[in-house]
């Protein structure tokens, strides 16, 4: 099979860690509003963006995710007051570090999506899928066995 054909048929796997109070609810709203976004996105529900450990993100890449999104409440709106402020520091550093190791920065994204932003949820997921589809499959931190 020619290489470009293979690329065309590539569908990325995107794992989204969503905080229960804002972003997961935003995803619910995208659903109740019948918006559409690619089925490539699969959501794992966590209480807060500050519950997302770098271990989970690395593990997702290892197990075949082509992109990972962490979504939380907008800074200042955290259900737990300050969780996303800590998350913001943790993930900014992680993102820059992964890029330092040669990972495309698009593959690990952080977004703030409120419970009322169903449209934003759908838009973020669509854009992310498009971007990562264009990047092609991730092999960089992936378990090649």
């Amino acid at each position, binding site marked *: 099979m020619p290489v470009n054909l293979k690329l065309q048929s590539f569908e990325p*796997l995107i*794992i989204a860690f969503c905080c*229960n109070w804002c972003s*997961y*609810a935003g*995803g*619910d709203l*995208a*659903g*109740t509003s*019948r*918006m*559409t*976004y*690619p*089925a490539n996105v*699969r*959501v*794992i*529900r*966590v*209480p*807060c963006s*500050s*519950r*997302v*450990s*770098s*271990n*989970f993100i690395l*593990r*997702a890449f290892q*197990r*075949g*995710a082509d992109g990972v999104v962490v979504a939380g409440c907008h800074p200042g709106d955290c*259900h*737990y*007051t*300050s*969780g996303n402020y*800590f*998350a913001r520091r*943790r993930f900014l550093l992680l993102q820059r570090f992964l890029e330092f190791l040669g990972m495309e920065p698009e593959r690990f994204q952080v977004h703030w999506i409120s419970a009322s932003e169903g449209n934003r949820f*759908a838009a973020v997921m669509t854009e992310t899928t498009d971007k990562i589809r264009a990047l092609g499959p991730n092999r960089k931190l992936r378990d090649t066995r």
Partner: protein
Amino acid sequence: MRRIGVFICWCGTNIANTVNIEGVTEAAGKMPSVIYADNYKYMCSEIGQSMIKEAIIKEKLDRVVVAACSPRMHELTFFKTAAAAGLNPYLVEIANIREHCSWVHKDKQEATGKAIALIRTAVAKAARNKELWATQIPVECRALVIGGGIGGIQAALDIADAGFEVDLVERTPSIGGRMAQLDKTFPTLDCSACILTPKMVEVASHHNITLYTFSEVEKVDGFVGNFEATIRKKARSIDLEKCTGCGICWEKCPSRVKSEFDEALVMRKAVYVPFPQAVPNVPVIDRASCRRFTREKCGICRKACPAGAVNYDQEDEVLQKKYGAIVVATGFDILDLDDFGEFSYGKHPDVLTSLEFERLVNSSGPTGGRLLRPSDQSPPKNVVFIQCVGSRDKSRGKPYCSKICCMYSAKHAILLREKYPEAQAYVFYIDIRTAGKDFEEFHRRAVEEYGALYLKGSVGKVFPDGDKLLVKGVDSLSGHAVEIEADMVVLAAAIKAKSDAPQLARLLGISTDTHSFFTEAHPKLRPVEAHTAGIFLAGACQGPKDIPETVSQASGAAAKAIILLSKDNLLSNPCVSEVNESLCTGCLSCIKVCPYGAVAEKTIEEKIHGKALKRRVAEVNEALCQGCGSCTVSCRPGAVNLKGFTNEQIMAEVDAICL
């Protein structure tokens, strides 16, 4: 090997139209540990729930996965279903195949594939779910109200009327607070004392309220339902029981100091009641200015007291009491005007703050209610009121609006005219804000009926000019700079938080904003609760407020406290953090990131090489933990784990979702 049952909901056509239910059921049946998979049109219906219950019993299911709508929708429903069949509810997992799948995807094949992945993920997590039990925390059925102004009074009365014991702690010798200093209240112009005093008396006589005046809260430990407070009852030097409030002591007292209650406009004695309607109507000896204490001379009041109530040897009393709920109603201060030299405040006796003006028009005030200029005791003819002195001022004052000044300035303009029909009020304003019931009408009355001249603009300088004050300002509406020869200038100084609010916040474990006002748990939906469970806020300690707002917030805070106190036990959210002590290194990073102060340090003893050794570890207070999980990520060895969202569970989800 687990025995997991998977129940797939069609949600009518909502799921079934885009997800191949049969295909998904078949795939689910083959997932690891799944021994039963079925589907139904409406899983949340009576029949659907019975299906689950029967299967739990018949198939001896030990975990249940329901693939249906969002867990935010029906998680509780299915928790109850499982519990009814004898299964711990926390063994149930929901796969969201509606909002996150069938409703957002069009292609049936794709949606079906994703639904299977989501169910596989839920199954993987469920396999690692553990039984969790909400713990019962007993509630101490007593409330502590800090602050005896109108907010604290209202909260205390409401809680007491609901049948709970309340301790009301007030720092000054009498309750009443700011409202007791006021003359009339807007927009009805009823007399402040007339509506406040009956409430003060009610507090004093209420069988459920214990009043601690001249007292301060020194320490608060514990958590929701179980606070333990240390209260210092400062030595009053007057026996509360013996004193009859006859007043002979302060008549005879030779020491005079400026009266705090009268905003230092007059002098009071060293033994004093702050104002005639004080509750309790028992004086205190201000030891800082009493000759007995400063020079070890005098003793006149003791000799004079017919009841023998004066006791110079009285000592501070420290109480330890337990409370289930705390209402904080500590009120506000007004901005120090040292930085606003252009108004000549402090340099000319006829330049006053609004609070001082309030005392001057008050019939129990220093002039007996006859508004007279402090400089020469003459009635003022032209009075200039300047609003936003320090409010909405980012550079020298506070950036926020103090909210009450527009209204009380209108009130002052009216009161001025009522006292002296020939007098003229001038009000410099930036904007007029009269959002409140009957507020705009009140303000218009001041303008139209009482002839107050409102000038949109600021005052640049107030020049003392003979026995007058020359006010230089602008009327930006006409574009004219204006000059007014005034007899009196009244400054609407900004409201600010109590200067020791940050200390109280630390003591209580609640947060303050950048201006030291206490922060509510949610600005819209939880406006009377502090971030710390069991602590509620009332009045201007949370932000500038008028009396009606303070009273409503106080009643709101009281209602929240009553809800809490009316429970014998509190059920805690079982999805809280726990510490694996054997893994805990004791670095205590978790304490730093916890927004609730729910993690603490503790020392444990361990046997190492046959020796008992002490070591510090972290400990989670389950009553305080809200389950955000920030601590789990700060913990490098993974010693802190969040029940319901453990590292193992989320890892299993990641592994399964990526398959």
